């Protein structure tokens, strides 16, 4: 049996995995990257709209800075995020964009002078500053107070992933594609690497590593219809759950994007609305201002999706053979804008709908899109429960997003977290704590266990006609999640979901397959993954059932209030070995250490059960501000929330902006 050794094993070749790998490799560590598919085909490539960073170059971004970005992110999360992480993130995002610019992302740039844009349905002329000419520009996105989303037309994920993919080649980092991590090797306290399966040959082997980083992206494919790539099956989170040690955070926090096309579920970017696109109903009426007069189409994602669903419930949806939907109108932006800035959207409309969005409206409805939850980590990206296990990107619950992620904050998270976690992983491997006595015996045990599991599947009788098979069980899971663990949730539906999923989970462990060979066998892969997908589905459904409040994307019809008093806490799911269901624990989100205490997000009517500590913390913050008035930004920030000291030293510097230069600040 093959056992390999390395310093750092990165599972996942998307943006988060690659940036972490580059960071660790630059610290002269040996790094191996695994991916199901060639790295540049990872789901990150499909991201369209852009990445948030408070550069403040564009006219509508003037005055932007880390504070504004931090505030938007915390409000967006409905106060569910970790504010230390959000602070670090807002500070790092400009550095990440600038690094990517140097590595070849051809960010769209500011063009000096006047140009026409569509804002709130009307044509407006903006005049860009001379001194900003040639710097990175930004577009508007939902839930942000400034135009902060940096972009390359609507192919931002593509340019970012290609720049990073090429960077990884430049650094000589090996990437093994068609390779799946199928189990984590650990002794209950320390992660030692992973069991790997070569999806082409079927070979099972072990890679032992001082540090293992999970960067496997989201798990949207447990829902029937999702904007996610079809490989987004959550196997990274699932194998972490299977350790019986690592915790998954907030698996019930799932985002539904307002505008996926019907019926295919393919996304058209929020940039459509950011650039001025409108949502219309069956009568052609622009309905969002009726619900959210101030932000309209550019309210936070969770809000827009719910408003759309509400509007359809009122009978204002468009009934079609493909299902009920609403319209996205970007024809208002004009053909020239679409050809330049929304060309992937145009391609998608042409190929999958047979329409031209410069003339026709696009049929859309809210669709599963993003996993806020994932492997729970500390601010360094490490699992607090299993040493040597790190997680980064959408696979992680680092907790930047809480209960609702802002558009553009996920691409930014992947690279920012990669920059930070790459350093922390390297520090860990170089430290005393990172020293590891590899145990080949343990590796053999784990490989043996996976081999037995695979052989058990191929030994089962092939499914009889009409009996359970992998495809039918999977459809059962997808239907359950779509119906009961969707945009709106309630006690009865969630109870049904949990019961159905428990049953499916048991059946999935008995299902046989027709084709028995171990190599290049998609049926075997599906059978092997299905129980794991069901385990994740159960974590999400059970977490949603227990969380009896509404926060961000988690909307309980029977508990519409955000209940800070009882629910300002993070769900942690873990799976005791051999158990039939996950166990839920809770981790408090402490108001006492917040820089921005819980408040009203400004959508709909205020419906909050206050936390008793909120008023106290507000008073405390006020007195800190009064005391340090005039002391300058740095000491004040340190007293409010001291994030800088927690960053790797190389990333602590202030971010320069043109406004600073104009004011004659030292360069």
């Amino acid at each position, binding site marked *: 049996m093959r056992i390999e050794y390395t310093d750092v094993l990165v599972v996942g070749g998307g943006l988060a995995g690659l940036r972490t790998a580059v960071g660790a490799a630059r610290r002269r560590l040996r790094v191996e990257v695994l991916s199901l*598919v060639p790295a540049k085909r990872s789901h990150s490539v499909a991201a369209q709209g852009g990445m948030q960073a408070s550069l403040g170059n564009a006219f509508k971004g003037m005055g932007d800075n880390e504070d504004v970005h931090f505030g938007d992110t915390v409000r967006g999360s409905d106060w569910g995020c970790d504010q230390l992480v959000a602070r670090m993130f807002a500070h790092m995002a400009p550095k990440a964009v600038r690094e990517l610019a140097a590595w070849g992302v051809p960010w769209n740039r500011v063009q000096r002078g006047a140009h026409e844009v569509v804002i709130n349905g009307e044509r407006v002329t903006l005049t860009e500053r001379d001194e900003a000419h040639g710097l990175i520009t930004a577009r508007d996105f939902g839930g942000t107070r400034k135009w902060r989303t940096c972009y390359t037309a609507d192919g931002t994920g593509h340019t970012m992933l290609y720049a990073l993919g090429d960077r990884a080649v430049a650094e000589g980092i090996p990437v093994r594609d068609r390779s799946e991590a199928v189990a984590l090797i650990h002794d209950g306290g320390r992660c030692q690497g992973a069991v790997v399966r070569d999806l082409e040959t079927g070979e099972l082997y072990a890679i032992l590593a001082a540090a293992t980083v999970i960067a496997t992206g989201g798990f949207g494919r447990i829902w029937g219809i999702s904007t996610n790539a079809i490989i987004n099956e959550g196997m990274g989170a699932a194998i972490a759950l299977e350790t019986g040690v690592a915790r998954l955070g907030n698996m019930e926090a799932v985002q539904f994007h307002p505008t996926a096309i019907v019926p295919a579920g393919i996304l058209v970017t929020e940039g459509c609305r950011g650039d001025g696109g409108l949502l219309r109903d069956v009568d052609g009426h622009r309905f969002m201002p009726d619900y959210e007069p101030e932000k309209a189409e550019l309210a936070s994602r969770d809000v827009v999706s719910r408003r759309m669903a509400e509007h359809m419930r009122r009978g204002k949806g468009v009934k079609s053979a493909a299902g009920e939907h609403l319209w996205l109108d970007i024809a208002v932006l004009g053909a020239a804008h679409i050809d330049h800035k929304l060309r992937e959207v145009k391609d998608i409309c042409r190929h999958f709908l047979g329409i031209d969005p410069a003339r026709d409206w696009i049929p859309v409805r809210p669709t599963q899109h993003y996993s806020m939850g994932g492997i729970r980590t500390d601010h360094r990206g490490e699992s607090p429960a299993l040493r040597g296990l790190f997680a980064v990107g959408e696979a992680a619950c680092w907790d930047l997003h809480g209960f609702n992620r802002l558009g553009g904050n996920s691409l930014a998270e992947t690279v920012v977290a990669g920059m930070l976690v790459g350093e922390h992983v390297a520090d860990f491997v170089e430290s005393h704590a990172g020293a590891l006595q590899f145990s080949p015996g343990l590796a053999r045990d784990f490989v043996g266990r996976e081999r037995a599991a695979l052989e058990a599947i191929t030994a089962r009788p092939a499914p009889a006609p009409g009996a359970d098979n992998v495809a039918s069980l999977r459809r059962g899971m997808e239907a359950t999640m779509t119906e009961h663990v969707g945009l709106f949730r309630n006690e009865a539906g969630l109870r049904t979901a949990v019961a159905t999923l428990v049953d499916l989970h048991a059946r999935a462990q008995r299902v046989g397959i027709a084709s028995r060979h171990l190599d*290049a066998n998609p049926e075997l892969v599906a059978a092997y993954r299905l129980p794991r997908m069901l385990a994740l589905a159960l974590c999400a459904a059970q977490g949603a059932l227990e969380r009896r409040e509404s926060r961000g994307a988690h909307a309980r019809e029977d508990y519409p209030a955000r209940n800070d008093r009882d629910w300002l806490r993070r769900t942690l799911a873990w799976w005791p070995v051999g158990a039939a269901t996950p166990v839920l624990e809770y981790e408090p989100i402490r108001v006492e250490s917040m820089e921005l205490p819980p408040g009203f997000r400004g959508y709909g009517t205020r419906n909050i059960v206050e936390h008793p500590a909120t008023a106290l913390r507000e008073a405390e913050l006020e007195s800190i501000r009064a005391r340090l008035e005039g002391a300058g930004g740095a000491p004040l920030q340190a007293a409010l929330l001291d994030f800088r000291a927690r960053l790797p030293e190389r990333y602590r510097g202030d971010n320069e902006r043109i406004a600073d230069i104009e004011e004659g600040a030292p360069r």
Partner: protein
Amino acid sequence: MSRRLKISIFRHNPRDPRSVPRLVDYELDERPGMTLFIALNAIRDTQAPDLNFDFVCRAGVCGACAMVIDGRPGLACRTLTSTLPAAFSLYPLPVFRLVADLSVDTGSWMRELAERLQTWVHLDAEPDLDRLEARMEPALAEAVYELDRCIECGCCIAACATAQMREGFVGAVGLVKIARFRLDSADTRDDADFYELVGNDEGIFGCMSLLACNDLCPKELPLQTQLAWLRRKMAGQGVRWLRRG
């Protein structure tokens, strides 16, 4: 009235000594809006559970699903069956190593290409991340993006007579990448450096300008103009060297 489709699919598992390359027919009812992504998954779910094919984004942006569709290389996920005859064939892309059935190993091929052509921005020094980014003309940034849109699907390679004959030919995908970095003001390499990489028969001088690549590129990259332009530049560079030598 809905059609009954008959899809003849290439099947072979090169690791199985008993497997012989063959065409197998699968029939299914066409539905409105059916893409090859939907059709192939339906065949896998109901008729051929171990049929290999590669879809990732299923939205025409990741490049995973290129195959030879009714004789022409293209992206399967965004091909509507309604654009095809009722009976048609599916083959894996030629040139690339066969994994099984419709699945080929484009990953290793593209990685090797990237290493050989050094398809990354070459910098003199890493940027200072605390400072303003280097400026770039907006029009230049857009022009670079235009060439950066290649999705490494391999259609241009499958379509290219040179690539089929000459192993090691970098194809339109390789040449357009060189054109992209040549255009990028951040890259410090000059034409002499690029000549080293593609000023030969495995590069631009191997290209016969038949432009099958240009007609088939699913991202509609301007391959025709870029290849012609690169040929002129590289020929010029070659002449400069001859004179100097």
